[in-house]
């Protein structure tokens, strides 16, 4: 018993260290004084907020942060609305082509984003969507919708149909039944889906770096890759580390707070509760 416990404990520890060490490293790097960046020590000789102050003074980062927040929020909002409607139909109605829709959605989720970046780049330039918020919101929505539809339809399926019928008999229109009865009950599912979509949009690098070019629409992951150093002879290592921490920490906190829900969302409907 103790041996087994110890075995699992050490395995967990190894995984934890392997996963967290790079994050810890970046954290330490971001807290180093810019003059001691290359001293080869993990633990900073001198702690300083210099790197954080630096990035918040650069408009390239603050603009990118603004873009990231709004693009991710808007993409999440639209994706959740569309996915709710689609998932509701899939969960409730029996219509021809239902399986085809789900399969198509799944196929899109399997599509490697990198393969469509080239065509998208050309299309977006012709359509005037290059380097705009909308130019990023559209692919984020497309790639998150399948997951969102899957997760939400699992949640909707668990809401007894009788409730809707009870609402119908009580005098609700189908829309009222949805907004007043079904939606509040599906709220945990909708919320979980929103978090998953938000994380995807927030973390994306491929689309962000390919479909934007200026602070007008560049998101943080793309902006970080193009950080200038303080001079042309200096690597912007400290700024990159600090910026990475700024965009990672909110996600980590969010996941820790809602991890139960997120796992429930990913496995919803897998087994009977």
């Amino acid at each position, binding site marked *: 018993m103790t041996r087994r416990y110890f075995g699992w404990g050490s395995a967990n520890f190894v995984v934890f260290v392997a996963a967290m060490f790079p994050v810890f490293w970046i954290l330490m790097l971001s807290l180093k004084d810019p003059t001691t960046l290359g001293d080869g020590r993990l633990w900073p000789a001198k702690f300083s907020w210099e790197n954080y102050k630096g990035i918040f003074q650069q408009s390239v980062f603050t603009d990118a942060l603004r873009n990231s927040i709004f693009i991710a929020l808007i993409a999440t909002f639209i994706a959740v609305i569309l996915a709710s409607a689609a998932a509701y139909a899939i969960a409730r109605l029996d219509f021809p082509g239902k399986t085809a829709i789900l399969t198509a959605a799944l196929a899109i989720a399997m599509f490697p984003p990198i393969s469509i970046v080239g065509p998208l780049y050309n299309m977006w330039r012709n359509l005037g969507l290059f380097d705009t918020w909308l130019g990023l919101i559209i692919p984020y929505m497309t790639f998150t919708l399948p997951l969102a539809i899957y997760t939400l339809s699992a949640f909707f399926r668990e809401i007894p149909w*009788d409730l809707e019928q009870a609402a119908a*008999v009580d005098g609700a229109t189908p829309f*009222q039944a949805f907004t*007043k009865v079904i939606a509040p*009950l599906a709220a945990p599912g909708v919320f979980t889906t929103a978090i998953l979509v938000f994380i995807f949009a927030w973390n994306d690098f491929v689309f962000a770096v390919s479909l934007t070019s200026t602070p007008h629409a560049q998101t943080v992951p793309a902006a970080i890759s193009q950080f200038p150093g303080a001079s042309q002879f200096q690597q912007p290592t400290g700024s990159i580390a600090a910026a990475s921490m700024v965009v990672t920490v909110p996600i980590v906190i969010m996941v820790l707070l809602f991890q139960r829900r997120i796992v429930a969302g990913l496995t919803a409907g897998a087994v009977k509760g």
Partner: protein
Amino acid sequence: MAEIELNDITKRYPDGFEAVKHMDLGIKDGEFMILVGPSGCGKSTALRMIAGLEDITEGDLKIGGEVVNERAPKDRDIAMVFQNYALYPHMTVRENMGFALKLAGVDRAEIDRKVSEAARVLDLEQHLDRKPANLSGGQRQRVAMGRAIVRDPKAFLMDEPLSNLDAKLRVQMRAEVSRLQHQLGTTTVYVTHDQVEAMTLGDRVAVMRAGILQQVDTPKSLYEHPVNLFVAGFIGSPAMNFFQASVDGDRVRFPLGEFSLPAQKRGSASGDVLLGVRPEDFEDASLIGDKPGHTFDTKITLVESLGSDLFAYFEYRGEHVETQELAELAADAGAADLPSTGDGNQAIARLEPASDIQADATARLWMDVSKVHLFDPRTGESLTERAAATA
């Protein structure tokens, strides 16, 4: 308040299955109508068509004199109590009960008044601010009833509302439902598979089988004058006993002897028939005296004494009665899964508790021949009821 009329209503699903076939039923204003039958007989489908939750394939449905086939449930002004109650889990009892009124745009003070009134009637006042998850089964059931009565609708539709309660609570709520319905005087259609509920609650009972309405009548006359084998076997607990018999003139021969049919039961019956005898139409011969009837000796296999009643099981030799109707009833009751007892057939008699009949002994039983039923073994139609009708 309104009468409900079903004119030649049929429900056909896209795969061709007909759940309800050409159903004609008139429910009077204020009447308590029960739809009863084994599972899958179409009773719930019929109710859901009245509610507007299922489309009607053919026929007219009138509520209060207006054809409502094409109306959405919300425009029919009916309230429904679901088997699983379908309470809104995110709303308090108060909000659940007031939901319909809120949707109808009734002002707050009026909603409060009606909800409080219903809560008082249903003894839910101290639970008004709780969520359904924190209520017991009986309380949830009462909330579901409350949600229906605050509306003051044209009709109540109830889909097996008591079937999720335990036995004791079910009896209590049955009385409660009956009291409420009489007090409110609202037309009610009540679906159940429990014939005891059907007999105790209904002003009239409609028995259904495989989508076809078999008989509509008061509980008493359903019990005494079933028009066919199915109704006879379904209504009554313990169920009616059936014997293979043959009629020759006015003489009826069956495995327990021979008797002559009283004049009012004589009809067109002749040749092979099925003889139906209710358990209470047997009696311990020693308690009867010389009342006219048929007496016979039989071996008692089991005696169940309930204090108020005494059930005696006895075996007889002869062909086992097998018809599709009875097989269906047995399957519905779960009896088809029971092993058959011995090599004989078993019948049940309900005797006076004063009887000192013993198991594993031979006893003399008496049978009231004026109350027997004869059925056509092929069609299942009653031969005695037809005789009574033509007489």
